[in-house]
């Protein structure tokens, strides 16, 4: 199994190749992807690209963490 390294808010994270960014969020920390408009932490929920709870910024573009595979050197940013 190959490993690759990506960055979540600049912190390096090592995951197995083939993992989704949603998986990487949980490897790196508590899995939180975004804060809701009333300030609650939200994590991947539907797991299949419907609920949009896991939307994050990946290499400058807004993407869904659950439908994006990790790539070496990928920069993932969570909204502050």
């Amino acid at each position, binding site marked *: *199994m190959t490993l690759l390294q990506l960055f979540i808010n600049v912190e390096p994270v090592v*995951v*197995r*190749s*083939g*993992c*989704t960014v*949603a*998986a*990487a969020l*949980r*490897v790196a920390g*508590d*899995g*939180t992807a975004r804060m*809701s*408009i*009333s300030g*609650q*932490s*939200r*994590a*991947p*929920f*539907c*797991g*299949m*690209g*419907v*609920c*949009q*709870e896991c*939307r994050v910024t990946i290499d400058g*573009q*807004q*993407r869904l963490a*659950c*439908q*994006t*595979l990790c790539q070496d050197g990928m920069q993932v940013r969570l909204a502050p």
Partner: protein
Amino acid sequence: MTPSTPSNSAPGLAQCDLLVIGAGPAGMAAALAAAPSGMAIVLVDDNPAPGGQIWRDGPDAHIPPAARHMREQLARRANVRLHLGTRVLSAPAPGQLLLEDAERGWCLGWQKLILCNGARELLLPFPGWTLPGVTGAGGLQALIKGGMPVADQRIVVAGTGPLLLAAAASARQAGARVIHIAEQAPRRAVLGFAAQLLRWPAKLGQALTLADRHYRTASHVQAAHGSKQLESVTLRTRGRSETLDCERLACGFGLVPNTQLGQLLGCALTPAGTQAPALLVDCWQATSRPSVYAAGECTGFGGSERALVQGAIAGHMAAGNNQAAQKLLPERARWDAFARQLRQRFALQPAIRQLAQPDTLVCRCEDVPLAALQGRGGWTDAKLHSRCGMGACQGRICGAAAQVLLGWSPPAPKLPLSPARIGTLALSSAPSTPEPAHGN
């Protein structure tokens, strides 16, 4: 897989003979059935790999040999092109769809279209359902297949349907401790379903491998608790409540057909009833729109075997091979009967509609509580007063929930069908766009 050959169309516009939306069992079967005709076929899916939800690939996925075989067959077909990580945004002109992947957007013209959009989970609100650690049941399975670590975590699985057992099995395989499986249907309904499985031996075999000593009927989630993360779950089983400490709750109440794209194209839906609306098809899988077929869970949920045979029928019909389609009708009837059993036996109990409290958020995108919806006349009224359904998911989660909780008709699809880049949306007004030089 090689580029589709442009055919009779405006110069520069990417064209195909057959466009299949969704590369799950139905879409793969449709493309494979149509492929021998030599048609230029494009198969589109928003996930990074084909297989749909049931055959989702990933570092922790175990794909059945039959699914792998279908993938290999597709890859060998020179006239089938696969676009993964690609979403459908709109239908800018008749016979055209606007597509977007991570890098680009483009319009694709089609002669025949097969909709295999699948289904999403019915995710219903209960106190605490927005806490990190709470997911759908199929949702947890999908996340685990995508490599999300769950080893040594305590997991409660809840909701309804055979998917709960499959989700629990995936979690256990990944090293989690499944401490409770709460099936809301009463014991007699589940036993009745199990007894009927003799008619579908393959399904009975599957059920036996999934049997679990933590499975409880007439059991449902009441609330999830935790400050920043899920810490425990209160379950109600035959009138008794108990609270279990756990790291995860996977809760799904069945499936909702994905009808948005079909609706956008003007395809009729199944008549309103107790089930969520599905795309209406005739015995040839044709929708109410000419040259548009639909197959699989978007025509009403019924499992992968039914999706495979429906997809094959649609593929043969799109290729003009009515005889081949006709031969499959008895097989489809067999799985239609299975689908009816599934829907009847796992119908939602009234208590499930009472789980959300006035302060429970129903719309997770705009953080709208149930209290803001109660007393409203329906979707439009609720949207005007609360922004419910106006967030990123475009009402796909809260719309299905409001139908179950309040009896409201789900909202009509909005454009674009998914959040999209401005540059892509500009294409829908441009006259034509070239097909990208290479796919995925």
